């Protein structure tokens, strides 16, 4: 689903990523680990072009999204992202946070289709026999809104926060915020979700609830790319673990082999520090 080919990123003279090649298939749960400053967060942020790559390709569903000419907004709809600091929209309630993007984007598409149809109807007058087909419009703004709301409520029910639907994010605890952020990205029905250290800013007792939700998603077959320091989680859930240091992948493999029998000396040193 995602093919990363020789990905490079530098900020000025600072080379952060120096040629990364990864293939992520549907249903994979890729956990990226590495010391701080290794480029693992940058790698994740390059995957949805939050940072524009300076070299290489990212083929997502057949399109190279690293190409600056591609309309990245279209592809980001299919890539959820969860941030270390949650980044819920502060001026929106919980349910608005979840509904905003689906409703806005679907209504935008609807308007585009309607505009196209109006124009085509007009030009068809002059077209004689071979008239252009109109696009099918099967929905309207009210339906989109209602369905998005139902979907948002069922997502909130899933994380047990339906009573917080009309609360503002500032009234939630860290764990609640992060779970809302996860279902916000789920509301777009993404093909893949990117997690950028989702538990690093949480109190220890709230880490569990967020990891549980992520495990549940993993079980449902959601494709995930996760940057994390939770080694236990990586061991348990990952299908593939990647170790990045100094902008390169030094080792990758299945968690059993990766943690049980690390080969790269840098990884051995890192694991001995982290797991100690």
């Amino acid at each position, binding site marked *: 689903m995602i093919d990363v080919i020789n990905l490079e990123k530098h900020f000025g003279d600072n080379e952060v990523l120096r040629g990364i090649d990864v293939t992520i298939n549907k249903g994979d749960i890729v956990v990226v680990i590495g010391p701080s400053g290794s480029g693992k967060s940058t790698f994740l942020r390059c995957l*949805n072009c939050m940072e524009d790559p300076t070299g290489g390709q990212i083929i997502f569903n057949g399109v190279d999204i690293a190409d600056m000419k591609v309309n990245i907004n279209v592809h980001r709809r299919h890539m959820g992202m969860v941030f270390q600091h949650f980044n819920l*929209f502060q001026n929106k309630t919980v349910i608005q946070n979840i509904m905003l993007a689906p409703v806005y984007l679907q209504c935008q598409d609807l308007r585009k289709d309607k505009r196209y149809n109006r124009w085509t109807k007009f030009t068809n007058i002059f077209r004689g026999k071979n008239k252009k087909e109109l696009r099918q419009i099967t929905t309207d703004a009210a339906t989109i809104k209602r369905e998005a709301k139902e979907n948002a409520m069922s997502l909130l029910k899933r994380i047990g926060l339906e009573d917080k639907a009309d609360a503002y994010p*500032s009234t939630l605890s860290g764990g609640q915020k992060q779970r809302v952020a996860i279902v916000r990205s789920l509301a777009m029905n993404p093909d893949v979700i990117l997690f950028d250290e989702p538990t690093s800013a949480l109190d220890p007792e709230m880490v569990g609830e967020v990891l549980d939700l992520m495990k549940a998603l993993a079980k449902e077959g959601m494709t995930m790319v996760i940057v994390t320091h939770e080694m236990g989680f990586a061991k348990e859930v990952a299908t593939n673990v990647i170790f990045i240091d100094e902008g390169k992948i030094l080792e990758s493999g299945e968690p059993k082999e990766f943690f049980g029998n690390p080969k790269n000396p840098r990884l051995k040193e890192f694991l001995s520090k982290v797991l100690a």
Partner: protein
Amino acid sequence: MGNFGLKVNRFYEIFVEQNGYVKVLEGLKNTLLIAVIGLIIGIAIGTLIAAIRTIPQYKVLPRVLNGICSVYVGIFRGTPMVVQLLVFYYVMLPLMGVKMTGVQVSMIVFGLNSAAYISEIMRSGIMSVDSGQMEAGRAVGLSYGTTMMKIVIPQAVKNILPTLGNEFIALIKETSVVSFVGATDLYVAFNYIGSNSYEFMVPYLVMALIYIVLVLIITLGIKTMERSLRRSDRRH
């Protein structure tokens, strides 16, 4: 204080019996109109400028636009309002061959002038919003413009509302220079009463009172707005 009583009587005479109040009402209307329309134009253009100036500057177009905006802000912050009014009224209008009343000119110039200040206020407001908000908007597939409009600017406005109120108050008070282009504002109205009665003490005192009351009302309005906008900050 007998003298003062006499002065009040004289003011009353002109104000009520010789229709001075009509002039004052017209002045009040113009003062408010110029300040409100000026503020609206200022917010619209100022927000646009601020949004343009906060676009990341790696492409050519944003850089060019940013340059234009800085020149605009430089010009309008670098000259006094009176000078702008005079230049617009006596230089620009004849050059363009357009006829406008003093009030219309004042509205436009006040709008353009406050846009320069509001753009800087708004820019600081936008920069005070956590960059994660923009990232989160972009990550769910919203465009830069949409995220700006729906997420960042509403939060920015909340942060800068007190400063924006200041700007409005400053505008109200600065309308006292529009007589330079022949518009009737509060100052002109009371000046008219004063010169008709040869007595300026009471008219100017009343004028000062009206300005204070106006500003107090605005302050109250802004406080109410702030409170309702700050809902999202508190538990409830």
